[in-house]
């Protein structure tokens, strides 16, 4: 164990913490909004709405995130002209955009399944009670279905948050200098891979520990 390497890599790896948190935060936010839309789509009766929603969930849940990231990043490079023509290339040109896009779509697919499960778990008689006192459909959804579904989904969503913290490390494969990216650079710079690995691993454990506590706090608050 080389303590010099450890003491030099601590500040460097910690300086990448905002990048990792930024990736996770923005992907979770965008992914959650998408997930609600997809979950609602999947519960629609019209086939032209529920089929695409289910297909989206199937594709992103059944293939590895790594290949999704490569497909979006390197794959889009093959369509540079076309993307420039529709004015999207300046977005796809940026690794950060591609990483957040891939992570958001991926978490949206998993979260949509979680939310759909939550919505289905809401007891029918509650909805009927809402209708009986004259609530409109949108009111029933906003005041009864959605809050209950969220509470029901929270433990599963907590797992998804932890998976996202871990998944964000794959952004390092498309040049993003997150915690894992900086770890890789330090490892090759000092020709000594194990010491900085301890630091990087501890950072992820710490983030996940805090995330677990936050989710647990919300679970307690929302408990009946």
């Amino acid at each position: 164990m080389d303590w010099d390497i450890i003491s030099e890599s601590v500040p460097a790896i910690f300086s990448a913490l905002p990048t990792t948190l930024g990736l996770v935060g923005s992907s979770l936010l965008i992914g959650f909004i998408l997930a609600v839309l997809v979950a609602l789509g999947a519960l629609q009766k019209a086939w032209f709405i529920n089929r695409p929603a289910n297909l989206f969930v199937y594709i992103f849940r059944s293939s590895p995130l790594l290949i999704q990231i490569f497909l979006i990043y390197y794959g889009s490079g093959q369509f540079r002209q076309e993307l420039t023509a529709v004015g999207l290339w300046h977005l796809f040109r940026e690794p950060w955009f591609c990483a957040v896009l891939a992570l958001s779509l991926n978490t949206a697919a998993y979260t949509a399944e979680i939310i759909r499960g939550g919505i289905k778990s809401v007891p029918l008689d509650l909805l009927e009670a809402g209708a009986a006192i004259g609530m409109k459909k949108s009111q029933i959804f906003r005041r009864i279905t959605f809050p209950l579904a969220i509470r029901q989904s929270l433990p599963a969503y907590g797992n998804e948050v932890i998976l996202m913290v871990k998944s964000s490390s794959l952004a390092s494969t498309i040049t993003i200098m997150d915690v894992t990216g900086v770890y890789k650079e330090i490892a090759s710079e000092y020709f000594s891979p194990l010491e900085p690995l301890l630091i990087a691993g501890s950072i992820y454990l710490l983030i996940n520990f805090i995330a677990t506590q936050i989710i647990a706090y919300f679970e307690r608050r929302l408990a009946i």
Partner: protein
Amino acid sequence: MKHLIKTGALAAAFSMGIMSAQADNVIRLATEGAYPPWNAVNSAGQLEGFEIELADELCARAKVECSLQQTAWDGIIPSLQQGKFDVIIAGMSITDKRKKKITFSRAYASSPAFFVVSDDSPLKDFSTEVDSLALGDMDDKEQAALMALKKALDGKTVGVQKGTIHLNFLKEYLKDEIDIRTYATQEQLDLDLQAGRVDVALAAMSYWHKLLSKEEGKNLLTVGPGVTEGPFGEGVGLGFRKKDQALADQFSVAIDSMVADGTLSAMAQKWFGFDAAAK
């Protein structure tokens, strides 16, 4: 390329036992096998390249029995220190940083670093008064060239392979001017250069020379001076464990003799298309 992959797949599939080093008196050399024309795997699945031919000749001249194996560039120095093999012959430049960990033979080749852009780049006409920029002891013209380089690259995104002297150079000299992107393999960098995600790519001339002469590299061109010395070190040498200084010296003498009788230059000319041999 395709056959190289097959070899890799076979090697991975059939090497299931625990591999252990062989014994006694055979000097084990290791190369990457993925850095043409220095070292690569040909369509018959065999190692070939400048350094493969060089290895044979050096072992003959040093009168030692040698074996040659393939190893990943990533982690090549830790593997040498752990004793996976005894000598690195993999286009490795002699730098002060690496010298802290291992020892080197004298240099047998050197290949200046060049910036490459695509032909629709605003930088495509960039050039400096000097063709060659040696960072060691710069004269006025070289100082001016470095300043011009800094100015030209200001605000650009420059791609470079991880764990290389080229990355070290960018960090040391151009950190404030440019945005550095690092890649695990040179091929990924090539994809992003073609896609326009990086404005400029930096690598050794020995690599560019081959790519730029092929169909997929015909829209690429080198700009500015070839850069040497400083972080690029004293050229490319063989790497040894520090305790094996005597072996390193033995190989240095063999390199000396190849330089003296011109075989090294001829060999470099054959593989690189230009004389990249050490003098």
